[in-house]
């Protein structure tokens, strides 16, 4: 289809002009007549029974709309995978900040005082806060054993492997919670009337997730619930499942008051009450041959899901499948579980389990290298997956990915070998210790296994009376480029200029369910469906005799206008068809886990100031194979943004917990990098194509989250000669480790008998 090429071109962001002029309208920029503001009364304790709720004096309660669990018309739950999470606590609470009551008032300024005036008496029960406490099962807070989900992967004969090993290397690696910290907090406006039903608008990733949750919560028919996504100021997974909760709250208040209700969280509430990245603990025990080849190993992986199941099984799934890294495991046993604690439920955050387990394996590989006595690069080369090899789920790698050569290129870009040598020499005489380290990884794009089949995404494209095309998807834009990429794909497919295609606002009344905007699936999976649906409307015009099989853009416009003039705007829909050779066994956790893997090597260069123990990332190389780069500026922006979040994950972003509640819920004390903290990040793309992705693309949104933390911690070990196995790694942690080491050294040097 000859026409102006838009794929591979940096088409300008579709909604960019509105964003740079301040015209873009986010949910808090919108007000409706007669609108009330909503607020949430939340639990102050981590676990217990609610004994009494009193409305304090000094407030005229008649002015307020009050909603409790009793007001819920449908099922008191936020429907997701399971139905265990209440929308409003009814008689018992299982985490701090759990929602109990809702208030609404026309003057939003009176709400904080009213919330504070509600006194709740609890009968506390013993809470648990750590993975270890959950495993001990002295307190059972969920199900029969605190375990949300378990997976087991087994392959090969491990007994033989231990017997033949030259080295057995063990390690334990932990990662902490991380807050998504989108700059726009959660917000929703809900309206309800008997005739039109419920309309929910707001900042969200997955309109149909919210739709499903509202239907269950409010007992409304599907066609009486409408969800509309407004311009969304960042999400990163933090608005995948959580919006169903805030939408449910706004909807309940709207139904009770018969007025529109807006709920906007301030930063503190958003930080302390909503989801975070699952904390994790991974234990490796690996049998290694003396040339560094992994013979096999055991991987024990646990993630902390917080108080309710929400998405933990899916996060665990991805963490499990990525636990082996981009390496061959002749024999392996992966035991993975997600456990419950009395913290607000943890949830989706870019990477979704992979950053956790990839941190572990990439730190572990450097450890193995040290034990075996070979270089970090060599240990990777000996074990890298390649075409024809099997992953830990026994998926055959079909593409000619040459990780060893990618590693060479990445290390060359980073000047790795020369710098490593130079730093080792210079560090002796400097209080600033420099180091360089890398991480090699893979990231599966799209839903796992049979996930995409189960989603059964539907995509539409519409031809308009103006002769242009609109893409109809529930896939949302929140900065990652959905509107731009899908417009590019539609335009490219039809041979139209980029400006002739646009994406319709995601509104469940108007667009089909193309699946959630998660899992790095939008460009790859949904994009492919967009191309298909675009061809569908082309076919309509051809079949109507208005268009030739090959045509110019002008001809298309004319045909489209003519057809629409007669029939109205016309649509074509495509449904996802899983590729024939994708096979996945959910029981054994074996088979084709993902339609495509992206591959990457990230190299970090750091300085550690031994006076302040602070780490600065001085240089960063991000090299990745992504199938096809659809839009260079957008793709580069995704990588750099992800690396910055990864730097935060590694060095700055620590959630300070006390009794299950985040103590540092302000931007002053939860530290994300500023422009002064991010180094030059040099991005390199490679393209092997992807038969299962639009125009050969693989998903890239989450991949950049996986590499930075292990690369940086590997670099810190290079700088200091000390291993660290936990992130976030703060100066205080480095100080304690160096201090302990110094004490141990001086004790070791002290002559016997002298203490």
């Amino acid at each position: 289809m000859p026409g102006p090429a838009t794929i591979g071109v940096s088409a300008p962001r579709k909604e960019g002009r509105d964003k740079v002029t301040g015209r873009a309208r986010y949910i808090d920029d919108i007000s409706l007549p007669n609108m009330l503001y909503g607020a949430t009364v939340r639990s102050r304790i981590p676990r217990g029974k609610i004994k009494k709720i009193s409305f304090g004096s000094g407030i005229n309660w008649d002015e307020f709309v009050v909603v409790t669990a009793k007001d819920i018309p449908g099922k008191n739950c936020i429907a997701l995978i399971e139905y265990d999470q209440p929308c409003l606590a009814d008689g018992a609470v299982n985490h701090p900040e759990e929602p109990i009551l809702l208030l609404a008032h026309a003057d939003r300024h009176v709400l904080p005082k009213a919330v504070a005036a509600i006194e709740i008496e609890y009968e506390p029960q013993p809470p648990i806060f750590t993975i270890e406490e959950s495993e001990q099962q002295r307190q059972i807070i969920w199900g029969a054993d605190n375990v949300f989900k378990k997976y087991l992967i087994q392959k090969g004969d491990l007994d033989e492997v231990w017997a033949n090993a030259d080295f057995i290397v063990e390690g334990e690696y932990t990662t902490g919670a991380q807050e998504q910290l989108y700059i726009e907090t959660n917000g929703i406006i809900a309206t309800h009337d008997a005739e039109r039903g419920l309309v929910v608008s707001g900042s969200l990733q997955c309109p149909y997730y919210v739709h499903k949750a509202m239907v269950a919560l409010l007992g409304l028919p599907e066609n009486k619930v409408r969800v509309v996504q407004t311009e969304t100021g960042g999400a990163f997974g933090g608005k995948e499942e959580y919006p169903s909760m805030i939408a449910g709250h706004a909807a309940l208040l709207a139904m009770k008051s018969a007025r529109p209700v807006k709920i906007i969280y301030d930063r503190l509430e958003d930080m302390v009450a909503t989801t975070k990245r699952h904390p994790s603990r991974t234990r490796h025990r690996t049998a290694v041959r003396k040339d560094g080849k992994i013979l096999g190993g055991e991987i024990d992986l646990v993630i902390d899901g917080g108080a309710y199941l929400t998405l933990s099984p899916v996060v665990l799934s991805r963490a499990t499948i990525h636990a082996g890294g981009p390496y061959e495991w002749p024999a392996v046993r992966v035991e993975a579980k997600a456990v419950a604690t009395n913290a607000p439920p943890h949830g989706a955050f870019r990477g979704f389990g992979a950053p956790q387990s990839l941190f572990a394996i990439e730190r572990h590989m450097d450890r193995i290298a040290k034990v075996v006595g070979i270089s970090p690069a060599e240990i990777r080369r000996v074990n890298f997956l390649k075409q024809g090899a099997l992953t830990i789920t026994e998926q055959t790698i079909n593409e000619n990915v040459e990780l060893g050569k990618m590693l060479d290129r990445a290390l060359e870009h980073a000047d790795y070998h020369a710098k490593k040598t130079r730093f080792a020499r210079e560090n002796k005489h400097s209080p600033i210790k420099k180091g360089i380290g890398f991480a090699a990884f893979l990231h599966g794009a799209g839903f796992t296994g049979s996930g995409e089949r189960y989603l059964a995404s539907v995509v539409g494209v519409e031809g308009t009376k103006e002769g242009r095309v609109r893409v109809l998807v529930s896939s949302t834009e929140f900065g990652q480029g959905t509107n731009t990429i899908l417009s590019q794909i539609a335009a490219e497919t039809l041979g139209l200029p980029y400006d002739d295609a646009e994406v319709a606002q995601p509104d469940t009344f108007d667009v089909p369910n193309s699946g959630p905007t998660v899992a790095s699936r939008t460009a790859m999976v949904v994009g492919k469906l967009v191309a298909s649906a675009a061809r569908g409307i082309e076919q309509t015009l051809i079949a109507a005799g208005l268009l030739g099989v090959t045509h110019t853009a002008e001809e298309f416009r004319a045909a489209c206008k003519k057809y629409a003039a007669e029939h109205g705007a016309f649509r074509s829909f495509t449904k996802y068809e899983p590729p024939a050779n994708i096979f996945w066994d959910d029981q054994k956790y074996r088979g084709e886990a993902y339609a495509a893997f992206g591959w990457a090597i990230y190299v970090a260069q750091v300085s550690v100031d031994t006076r302040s123990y602070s780490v600065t990332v001085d240089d960063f190389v991000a090299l990745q194979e992504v199938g096809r780069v659809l839009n260079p500026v957008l793709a580069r922006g995704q990588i750099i943004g992800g690396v910055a979040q990864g730097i935060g994950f590694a060095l700055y972003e620590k959630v300070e917990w006390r009794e299950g509640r985040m103590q540092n819920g302000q931007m002053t004390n939860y530290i994300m990098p500023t422009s002064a903290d991010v180094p030059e990040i040099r991005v390199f793309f490679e393209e092997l194509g992807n038969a299962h992705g639009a125009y050969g693309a693989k998903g890239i949104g989450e991949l950049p989250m996986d590499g930075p933390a292990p690369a940086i911690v590997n670099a810190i070990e290079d700088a200091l000669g000390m291993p660290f196995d936990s992130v976030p790694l703060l100066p205080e942690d480095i100080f304690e480790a160096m201090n302990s080491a110094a004490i141990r050294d001086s004790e070791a040097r002290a002559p016997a008998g002298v203490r």
Partner: protein
Amino acid sequence: MRSDPAEFNLVAPSDLRSALALMTTEGERWMPIAGGTDLMVQYAAGALRARRLMSIARLPELRQINVAADEIQIGAGSTYTDLRRQEAIARDFPMLAQAAGWVGGIANQNRGTIGGNIVNASPAGDSLPALLAYGAELILVSLNGERRVPYTMFHTGYRKIQLASNELIRAVCLPRRFIAYLQHARKVGTRNAQAVSKIALAALARVEGGIVRDVRIALGSVAPVPMRLAETERILTGNLLDDSVVALAAKTAASEVKPIDDIRSTARYRAAVVGNLVAEFLERLRAEPAATEAANQTLARWNALSADAAEGEILACCGSRVWARAMVSRRPLAEESAALSASEEICAGLGDADWLEAFCAHPRIGGKKAEEVASLQSAAWSAQEQSSAAAAGAELKAALAEGNREYERRFGRIFIVCATGKTSAEILAILQKRLQNDDRSELREAAEQQRQITELRLRKWLRA
């Protein structure tokens, strides 16, 4: 946003007097608010106890920065941006200029004030260690008048200050005596910008011949109040900066501070970093002696004289006692350029009487003796300067003598001109021209000539 604006009152008095009057009224105190970078955060969190606020952000009396010979007075309402833009602060008080750049981002620097930083009294206040190190004094003002309080005495406990309920800080005064000191400041925050301080150090020292003559080390965020390390300073003062002294000082510093565990950091980390930062400062001090020892021999000797002797000696350069005393008070002066720029500044502030006194120290030009000769040196220099006049022909000499007498009749004092490099004919021409001046203009011209003479004499003296 967790406060209800309807429950608050904010007024904006137009001048300092009205603001102070408001602070003495009955009822709940009117809490002063300047840039709001602390108070508005509390307000948004629903944690601001005060309900009545008084804006002092635009009071002109609080925004002035006055540079005098011996001190800089910084209006308490000066923003961090004001501080960064003030050349005299960048030159004389670089640690304060640096601290102003530590604060938040540009938007916070445009609003936050030095007075607010002091009154908020957080031990983590970015500007506070520098103020301590520089020996700041605060001018507090109320309707009853003003009083000066040394900043070292201002904090009486965690967030407790010596400020009466009817007082405002009007200005922060910094003494201009640290030109010859090595100055070193460092902040360790949670990230490179927009960071609350975990440890902040401001230190200055003067070292001569390897010996620490004066050292001031101030720390923030490691105690309930910003503090000077008195014990560490004691260990250093008067001692040679060798390895053992540096190690002992660093160790003492780490144990002298009283940090806590808090949401940002730990006590152990803070104490260890203090020790490291002090060691870093002392290593820098050791490595840069040239910056701290007097590069000029004359100054080295003169710096060590008693005040009287020093004054007596330098009067030869300029007969104004006020000038001489001010120069003495600037000691120690390190290099030639420091002495010359000090003199220039002092000259800029001299009054008429001072100039007249200086004029009196010169002999009449062309004459043999001064009416009053300050010293042999002065006489010798005068002779040198007027050498060309001495060599003039008889006719010229007579014309000069007559001109001098006429000048004295007209203006009541002798004619002053910087004679060096000028011929007698030129001097005569200048004299005749200046006889036409009015009193005011002539005094100015004479003062300018005296200034040039002083500069020449200073240069000679420095190279003696």
